[in-house]
C-alpha cells in the first residue's frame, strides 16, 4: 500500500523522477543502465526457458501453429546437417531400414527361386505336359488351367456391406488378379446381394429363423457371405474354400463391428470413415495351393539330364570331328588334290576339292566310325596354253630365265634351268600324265649356285609371287570367282614351298597377313563386314589345306578407293608375307 502510494506520488511528479534518476546515475556510475539491461535479458531468457515446453505443449493441443512455425526451420536444419555430414544420416537410418532392405532382398531371391521352380514344374514335368493337353482339349489358356489345378482357393475380393441398406461400406481386391475377375460394380453387387439375401430370408422364414444365404456358387467362383448384426462380409473366392475361411471371415466381421461400432451406428452415407478397415479386409485376401510340397529335385533332375545330354552330344560331335579329320588326311595324303572348302553338317563333312587333270580321282564318299565325307571334286580343265603352262612356271619356279610352250602334244622347255629344276620336272609323275613328251633339248643348265643363296632367291621370288596374287570375289559376296579358285591352288603350292624354304633358311618368323577388300558399292558397315569375310575365306582355305593357322592372320580393310580399277578388280583378298631377316651366310 505504501509503495503504491509512493508510485502514485512519483508518477504525479515527473520532476521528482528526473531527480531520482540523476541521483542514481551519480551514485552508481555509467555501467548502471547496461547492468540493468543484462539483468533484465537474463531474467527474460530464464522466464522463457521455464515456460517454453509447456507453452509448446499447450499450443500444439490448440492448433498446428507451432508445427507450421518450426517446419521450415527444421527442414533447413536437416538439410544443412545432411549436407555437412551425409554419413551421419546414413548411420542413423541404417539400423532402421537395413534389416528391412535385407529382408526385402532375401524375400525377392526366395520369390525368384520359387518362381523358377514353379516354372520348371509347370513346364517340363509329365504332369504339366498332360495338363497342357487337357487345357488344349478344354480350349482354355494353360495358365488358367494350371491355376485351377494347383489352386485350392484364392480370395479375390472382399466386400463389407451395411446389413440393412445393402450399401457397400468398403471393399478390397487382390492387386495381382485380373480386374475382370473382380465384381464389376461392387456397389450394385452389394445391394443386389442384400436383396437376394432378403428374398431368401423372407421366402424360407417359415422353415427356419436362422435361414441365411451364406454361399453362392457360380462357375469356378464362390461367394461366401457371413452376416453380423450391423454388417455383412462377402468374399469372392476362386476354387474350393476350406471351412476355416468362413470362420476367418466371421472373425474379421466381428472385429470390424467392434472397432467401427460407433461409425456403423451413426452411418449416414459417408463411407470414408471405413477406409481404415482395408487392413482388416486385406488379411482375408488369402490363397492356398494344392500340394505345395517343394520339389526342387525336379529342377535339378531336369538340369542334370540336360547337362548329360549336352555332354554326350558334345563328345559325339568331337569324336565324329576327329574321324572326319582322319578321313581328310587320307584325301590330302595323295598330294594332288586341293581342298577348296569344307562344311560340316552333323556327321557329314562336305568337302570341295580341286583335282588336276590326270590325278587319281577321289571317291564320292568316305565313311569310317560314324563319320562321313562327301567329296565333290572339281576337275580343272587345264588347257595347256591358258592354265597348265603358267601353272608350270609357278610350280617349278621358272622365273624369267625359262619358258614352257606347247608344240604338237609336246611340252617344250626353253631357257636356263637349274639341274634341280630339270630333275624335278622329269621326275614329276603328275606332269608325266599331262605331258607324256617333254622336250628339254633347248634347256641350258645353270651353273650350280651356292645353295643358300639360291634358296634365298627362290624364297624372295615366292614372296613376290604370293604378294602379287589377287583373289577376286563375286559381287556382294564372299564367294571366290572360278579363276580365283584355280589361282588358290597355285598359291597354296607356293606357300608350302615358301614355308619349307623358311625352315631350310632358318627364317625366324613367317606370317601371312590376308587382307580383304570390297568395292565402294555398299555402305561402310557392309563393306567392312564383306572385306572381313573375304579375308576369312582365304584364311579358312589355307588352314584347311594344312597351313599352320598360327601363321595366318586375316583383316578386313573395307572398301578400296581406287577409281582407276573396275569394280570387279576391287573385290579381292591379297596376301602379305612378313618374315624375319634373310642372310646369305649360315648363322
Amino acid at each position: 500500500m505504501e509503495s503504491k502510494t509512493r508510485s502514485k506520488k512519483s508518477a504525479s511528479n515527473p520532476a521528482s523522477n528526473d531527480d531520482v534518476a540523476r541521483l542514481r546515475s551519480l551514485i552508481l556510475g555509467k555501467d548502471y543502465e547496461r547492468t540493468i539491461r543484462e539483468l533484465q535479458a537474463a531474467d527474460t531468457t530464464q522466464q522463457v526457458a521455464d515456460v517454453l515446453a509447456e507453452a509448446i505443449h499447450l499450443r500444439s493441443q490448440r492448433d498446428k501453429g507451432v508445427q507450421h512455425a518450426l517446419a521450415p526451420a527444421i527442414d533447413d536444419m536437416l538439410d544443412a546437417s545432411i549436407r555437412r555430414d551425409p554419413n551421419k544420416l546414413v548411420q542413423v537410418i541404417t539400423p532402421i531400414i537395413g534389416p528391412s532392405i535385407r529382408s526385402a532382398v532375401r524375400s525377392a531371391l526366395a520369390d525368384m527361386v520359387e518362381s523358377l521352380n514353379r516354372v520348371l514344374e509347370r513346364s517340363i514335368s509329365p504332369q504339366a505336359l498332360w495338363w497342357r493337353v487337357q487345357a488344349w482339349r478344354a480350349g482354355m489358356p494353360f495358365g488358367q488351367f494350371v491355376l485351377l489345378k494347383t489352386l485350392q482357393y484364392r480370395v479375390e475380393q472382399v466386400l463389407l456391406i451395411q446389413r440393412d441398406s445393402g450399401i457397400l461400406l468398403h471393399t478390397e481386391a487382390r492387386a495381382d488378379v485380373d480386374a475382370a475377375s473382380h465384381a464389376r460394380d461392387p456397389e450394385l453387387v452389394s445391394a443386389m446381394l442384400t436383396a437376394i439375401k432378403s428374398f431368401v430370408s423372407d421366402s424360407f422364414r417359415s422353415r427356419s429363423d436362422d435361414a441365411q444365404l451364406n454361399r453362392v456358387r457360380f462357375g469356378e467362383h464362390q461367394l461366401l457371405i457371413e452376416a453380423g448384426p450391423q454388417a455383412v462380409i462377402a468374399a469372392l473366392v476362386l476354387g474350393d474354400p476350406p471351412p476355416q475361411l468362413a470362420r476367418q471371415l466371421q472373425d474379421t466381421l466381428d472385429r470390424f463391428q467392434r472397432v467401427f461400432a460407433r461409425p456403423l451406428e451413426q452411418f449416414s452415407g459417408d463411407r470414408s470413415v471405413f477406409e481404415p478397415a482395408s487392413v482388416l479386409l486385406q488379411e482375408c485376401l488369402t490363397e492356398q495351393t494344392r500340394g505345395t510340397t517343394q520339389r526342387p529335385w525336379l529342377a535339378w533332375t531336369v538340369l542334370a539330364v540336360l547337362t548329360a545330354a549336352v555332354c554326350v552330344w558334345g563328345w559325339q560331335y568331337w569324336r565324329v570331328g576327329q574321324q572326319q579329320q582322319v578321313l581328310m588326311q587320307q584325301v590330302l595324303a595323295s598330294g594332288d588334290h586341293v581342298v577348296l572348302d569344307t562344311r560340316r553338317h552333323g556327321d557329314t563333312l562336305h568337302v570341295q576339292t580341286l583335282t588336276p587333270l590326270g590325278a587319281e580321282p577321289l571317291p564320292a564318299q568316305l565313311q569310317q566310325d560314324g563319320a562321313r565325307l562327301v567329296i565333290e571334286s572339281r576337275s580343272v580343265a587345264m588347257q595347256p596354253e591358258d592354265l597348265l603352262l603358267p601353272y608350270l612356271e609357278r610350280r617349278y619356279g621358272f622365273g624369267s630365265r625359262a619358258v614352257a610352250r606347247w608344240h604338237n602334244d609336246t611340252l617344250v622347255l626353253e631357257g636356263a634351268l637349274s639341274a634341280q629344276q630339270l630333275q624335278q620336272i622329269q621326275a614329276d609323275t603328275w606332269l608325266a600324265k599331262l605331258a607324256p613328251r617333254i622336250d628339254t633339248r633347248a634347256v641350258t643348265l645353270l651353273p650350280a649356285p651356292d645353295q643358300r643363296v639360291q634358296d634365298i632367291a627362290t624364297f624372295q621370288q615366292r614372296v613376290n609371287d604370293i604378294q602379287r596374287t589377287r583373289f577376286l570375289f563375286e559381287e556382294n559376296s564372299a564367294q571366290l570367282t572360278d579363276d580365283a579358285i584355280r589361282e588358290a591352288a597355285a598359291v597354296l603350292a607356293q606357300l608350302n614351298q615358301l614355308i619349307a624354304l623358311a625352315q631350310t633358311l632358318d627364317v625366324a618368323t613367317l606370317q601371312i597377313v590376308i587382307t580383304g577388300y570390297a568395292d565402294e558399292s555398299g555402305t561402310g558397315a557392309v563393306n567392312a563386314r564383306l572385306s572381313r569375310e573375304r579375308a576369312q575365306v582365304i584364311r579358312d582355305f589355307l588352314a584347311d589345306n594344312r597351313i599352320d593357322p598360327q601363321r595366318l592372320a586375316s583383316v578386313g580393310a573395307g572398301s578400296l578407293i581406287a577409281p582407276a580399277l573396275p569394280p570387279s578388280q576391287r573385290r579381292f583378298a591379297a596376301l602379305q608375307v612378313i618374315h624375319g631377316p634373310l642372310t646369305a651366310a649360315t648363322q
Partner: protein
Amino acid sequence: MVVKKICMMGAFAVGKTSLVRRFVHSIFSDTYQTTIGVMISKKTLAVDSVDYQLVIWDLEGRDEFTDVRSNYLRGAAGVFFVVDVTRPHTLTVARQLRYEVQKHVGDIPALILLNKSDLADQWRLDGDVLQQLEAEGCTLIRTSAKSGDQVDASFIALVRAMQNASAE
C-alpha cells in the same frame, strides 16, 4: 461422397422403372416390362455442392393383395411413391404403401410422384384426395418419365428432404 439408399414403390405399371431409367440413363421406352423382385441402379449427383451416390431400389409393383417385402425397405433414406395419374386406384395403393413404409421403417422422407403427367387429357385423380394428402404434409410432384419432365427435380427434391431429415 455420401451414399444413400432410396426406394421406388407403387402399383403395377405406374412407371417406376421408367422413372429410374429416365433418371439414370436418360432414356424412355414404351415397352412395358414388369419388374420381378427388385431392380437396383445407382446414380451420382451433386446437390448443394455435396456429391451423392443414390442406390435406387426399384421394387416390383404392388397391390392390395400382395405384401410389402419389408426387408427391401430396411436402411432406405428416402422413398418415392409413384402414382399413375390415369388410374385413380394407383393413388390408393400409394397411400397404403405409405402406411406400410411408416409401419416398417418409420417416418423417412417420401415424395409422391404423379407420373404420366404428359397424359393431361386422361387425368383421373381426385383433386380432393390430393389436397388431403398435401394437407397431411405429403409433397406431390407431377412427373413424366416419357418427357423427362420433373424427373431429375424429383430426385433432387428427395435428396434435399433427406438432407433436412438428417439435419433434424
